[in-house]
């Protein structure tokens, strides 16, 4: 954890200059398909009449575009030549920091140049763009017309499945039997230890007692909240409860 916050400044100390290059999406997609070694192409840096020119050439194998459908490969090719347009980082100071899988932060270097990777515009490229456009304009959701009507649902049924289950359940569990008053009281006290407010339905569920009987007992030991934050819930009468306040609880927990 010691490295958690400390930033490794070695990159910046060595004044490593990096380039920030904006690359089109299709190109980066092609790069993702690169081999293990990772070689994607070559960059040529030359000086032409005093101006620096940088050009990136995509390697041949990657320029073959395999579109999703798989039929059109070969016909369309990702452009190979990409001159870079270089800018200086005038208005901003940019640095690069990296976060490793272990959450280690390190400052990799400073950005010295910005560049945009543009393709050489030719027909091939235009076709590629057209294709991209078509794909992007397709709506995500599509209405399809069905040839045949669905017949499997919405049939009239004598008794729905859900209902059948319910009735079976009811039968198996049987009617709720009144247990001894003391037993019920014990059950109630133990449940109220867990939470302060309970709905009558939940209490019935927990105690498996008939509603009227349960209500009778609750009227004896508890009160009903009809208003307030905990509406329509039952809680124990003050004399029966001895909740510690939350703070005390925390203290005891911490202790």
């Amino acid at each position, binding site marked *: 954890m010691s490295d*958690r*916050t*400390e*930033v490794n*400044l070695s990159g*910046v100390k060595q*004044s*490593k200059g*990096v*380039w*920030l*290059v904006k*690359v*089109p*999406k299709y190109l*980066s997609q092609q*790069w993702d398909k*690169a081999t*293990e*070694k*990772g*070689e*994607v*192409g*070559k*960059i*040529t*840096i*030359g*000086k*032409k*009449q005093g101006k620096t*020119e940088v050009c*990136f050439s995509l390697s041949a194998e990657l320029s073959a575009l395999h579109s999703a459908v798989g039929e059109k490969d070969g016909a369309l090719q990702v452009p190979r030549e990409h001159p870079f347009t270089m800018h200086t980082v*005038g*208005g*901003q*100071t*940019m*640095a*690069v*920091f*990296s*976060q*490793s*899988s272990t959450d280690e932060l390190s400052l*990799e270097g400073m950005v010295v140049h910005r560049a945009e990777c543009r393709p050489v515009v030719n027909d091939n490229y235009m076709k590629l763009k057209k294709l991209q456009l078509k794909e992007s304009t397709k709506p995500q959701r599509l209405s399809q017309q069905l040839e045949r009507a669905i017949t499997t649902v919405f049939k009239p049924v004598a008794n729905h499945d859900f209902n059948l289950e319910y009735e079976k359940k009811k039968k198996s569990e049987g009617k709720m039997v009144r247990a001894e008053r003391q037993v019920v009281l014990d059950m109630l006290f133990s449940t109220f*230890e*867990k*939470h*302060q*407010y*309970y*709905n009558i339905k*939940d209490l019935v569920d927990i105690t498996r007692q008939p509603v009227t009987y349960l209500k009778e007992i609750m009227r004896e030991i508890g009160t009903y909240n009809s208003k307030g934050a*905990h509406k329509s819930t039952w809680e124990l009468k003050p004399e029966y409860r001895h*909740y510690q*306040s*939350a703070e005390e*609880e925390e203290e005891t927990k911490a202790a």
Partner: protein
Amino acid sequence: MTSLGSSSSSATEYTVRVPKNTSKKYNIMAFNAGDRVNCSTWTQARMERDMSARRIYGEEETAEGAAGSEFGKKQREEARRKKFGIVTREFKVEEQPWILKVNGKAGKRFKGQKKGGVTENASYYIFTQCPDGAFEAFPVNGWYNFIPQAKHRTLTAEEAEEEWGRRNKVVNHFNIMLQKRLREQEHGEDDEDEAEKSGKKKKKGGGGGRGGDLRIHDLEDDLEMSSDDSDSSMGEDGGSKAKVKKNAAKGGAKKKKRKGNDNEALEDSDDGDYEGLEVDYMSDESSSDEEPEKGKPSKGEDHPKGIDEASESEEESEEEKQNDEEGKEEEEEEEGKKTPVQMEKKKKKDSSGESDISDDSDIEGDTPSALFMKSTPPKRGGGRGSAGSSRTGSRPGTPSIDSASTSNTLHAAASKLEQGKRQIPGPGTDSPAAKRLKMEPSSQSPVPSGKNTPQPPSGKSTPSSSDVQLTEEAVRRYLIRKPMTTKDLLKKFQTKRTGLSSEQTVNVLAQILKRLNPERKNVNDKMHFYLTE
């Protein structure tokens, strides 16, 4: 690498690799050029996610289990949310801003917020050159804009609005935050006075009403100010004059925008110097001056003071007065409101020194200097303005009367008010005594001078206005100057000003006349008295 030679260009080729297996995620840390960040100067940096938003997301954790909780509350809440279609955004750690601390505790702090939409349409890659000459390209995972965080205290919205309202007046910008800091210090320190202070402050127009711009409760000031010393402080005036002047020269560097008083540029105050000093409130102009002087006047403050603030303000006003000898009228115009109060205060202090008050006020020469110890810029004037607006916080809401800078008419008005309320401790000689005529606490009945008529019940601590004391000397002066009837004489010693009832005035006047035995002359069928010296 192959070198291609061509006629007018030379090019070198490098391979570009996009490593596949990087476990590192690269991000951009962008700074604004204006911040002039130089990463190479960083010796140490710490960065972590800003998790303060987690509280907001994890909110409303009601008591779970036992007290206060409900059975099945969570599920019900969730169901309710779904029903209403409330979609709560998850707290994603990845989206949280970074907090970058450079060079330890004393260094800079930055907050880096993620810039959205960077990777949507185009990908950014970082090209670094490897030792073997090839380029490696790493995709950029996220872009964070880092902004420096201010360490200094900023104003809240309310305070900012207040200051905005005062922007056209002469405002010492340095003071705004300093006052705020000092006031907070005070609040921590003076508990007993807190109520009063806060009360006063509020009366003076809210917490930010320093600088005495709002002098709403003159009465308060009068009554409360009544118990003060200035006698002792007066006594010190001579000594402190020099100090004050020096301080005035020293301080007040910050009073840049005094109206028309730009000559005090000679001051050179440091921020930190005055921070520890206790001030009730700081006026715009002279705060920095006032603070260092606080220590001095306090030496002479032995008198029981009803209120600490009162004493402080006393000191201040004294200081002010010293400085303000010349610059009386300067600030007056701007602060018409303040003047009455200030005049009163001044009166309290020294009840002297105003030209209009009495011709024979000797104090004028001395007292102004003595009294105007206020640290307002030495040149002139700052006094008044400073009195009004630049009260260094010692006395919230009590305008420190800048005695110096009151005009005649205003002074007269103030003095009337004062006299109506205050007792005249009866000094035999006006001016010097007048100086000492601070409002003495009613418990200490001012020592009545032999010449004065019995004082009004001491419950009233009225100001002593030396100016119009009904004394033999005064009468003599009048009679020497020109013949007057008894009526005229009575007019001169108005009951309001002398604090005596009309009967008493008559009696005293009669006694005096008997003693003086002036010559009589009949002019216009009226008996005039006159004296020839």
